[in-house]
């Protein structure tokens, strides 16, 4: 298990720019509760809200429809919009589940979405956004493993909403929630693999 670092703890005595750190008097300090790795310096937050970046895939629920502008609830403090134009026409209804890619983020809080896709049916699982990278895994390994063994279609939104459809939804949900709880403990991939094998036999 890697070390846990807390806000205000010094991570290096030299000024190094890394995410979730700040530099003061030539020293680098952490500003979040996270897992810390010395070489190369990186801090992975254990908790916290999602910070939108361009190209992020998100899953949300259409919460308002005005002419060709759709507002999507991404469980984020800012607004997120799908704007239809002359060449792009969408017809979503209130309450539709959509998957989309972030085209632009204005002033760190207004999100413009593009390439929306309607997700019909399925179940939504809401998890902590900080655990999403672990759920996806390196090169999508973790999420592929889950969808392969349960036969479910899974769409992971970086905002913390996961859409699961078809196959063994109950098992897929259980695995997703387990990953949320144990993301920081090493050996997770093996444990999930073992769990899958024992559960699929039954």
């Amino acid at each position, binding site marked *: 298990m890697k070390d846990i670092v807390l806000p205000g703890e010094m991570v290096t005595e030299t000024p190094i720019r890394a995410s979730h750190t700040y530099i003061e008097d030539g020293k680098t300090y952490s500003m979040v509760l996270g897992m810390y790795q010395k070489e190369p310096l990186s801090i992975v937050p254990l908790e916290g*809200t999602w910070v939108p970046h361009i190209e992020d895939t998100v899953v949300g629920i259409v919460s308002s429809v005005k002419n060709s502008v759709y507002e999507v609830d991404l469980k984020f403090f800012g607004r997120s919009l799908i704007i239809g134009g002359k060449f792009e026409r969408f017809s979503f209804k209130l309450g539709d589940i959509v998957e989309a890619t972030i085209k632009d983020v204005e002033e760190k809080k207004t999100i413009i979405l593009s390439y929306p896709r309607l997700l019909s049916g399925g179940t939504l699982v809401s998890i902590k956004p900080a655990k999403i990278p672990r759920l996806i895994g390196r090169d999508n390994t973790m999420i592929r493993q889950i969808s392969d063994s349960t036969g479910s279609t899974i769409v992971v939104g970086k905002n913390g909403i996961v859409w699961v459809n078809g196959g063994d939804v109950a098992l897929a949900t259980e695995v997703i929630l387990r990953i949320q709880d144990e993301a920081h403990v090493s050996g997770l991939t093996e444990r999930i693999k073992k769990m899958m094998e024992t559960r699929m036999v039954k």
Partner: protein
Amino acid sequence: MASKANRPELIVHGKRLDGRALDELRPLKIEASVLKNADGSAYLEWGRNKVLAAVYGPMETQPKHMADPTRAIIKCRYAMAPFSSLEEHGRTGPNRRATEISKVTREVFENVVMLNEFPGSMINIFIEILQSDGGTRAAGITAASVALASAGIHMRDLVYAVSIGKVGEHLILDLNMLEDNYSDSDMPMAISPRNDNVLLLQMDGEYTKEELHKAMEMAKEAGKTISKIQKDALKHVYKKVAEKYESE
């Protein structure tokens, strides 16, 4: 009413009424992430104080006109439960005292939270005093600090708070209700342990310059213990899960 006329003997043979030494803290216990619905939370027991702190955010600013497009805003609500106290403090609803403590607590955290990370948003801090026995604003700040960290909010430091009082010529650490009411002076302070910046300093009564310096030293010394308990509380949440698998 508390006055010098009916004051009990607060220090007997170098010990205080509850048997503590002059520079001894009451037993402190913190548990982080106790509430499921809140983004971050902490439960604290400090002597006979029982405090629950919860943090929500960063979230959409309500009311919207308060949103600041350059930085996040912090809202803080300190409240004593109606059953928390023996005397008048625990009245229901906000009162003058609660409003003041909410304000000073907010100002403590405005100095450590990285407000420019989430412009236009709002961070809500709720401090609920379930049982009070003196020094609740210090207990509230200590708990809220852990709650903020467990919500993953970007902060410069993990703040702690403690109070220092004066009885005769003796300085005493971490006052309880009786000492708070009858001592000559009472000074709660909130300190950022990384660089010992003082973020809150309120004072009832008076100190000489030397006493003030000595009080600061006492607070910093006690802060080492408090900081450690805060950090252990946060780490424990994650270590608990890890230990389950390491033992297998």
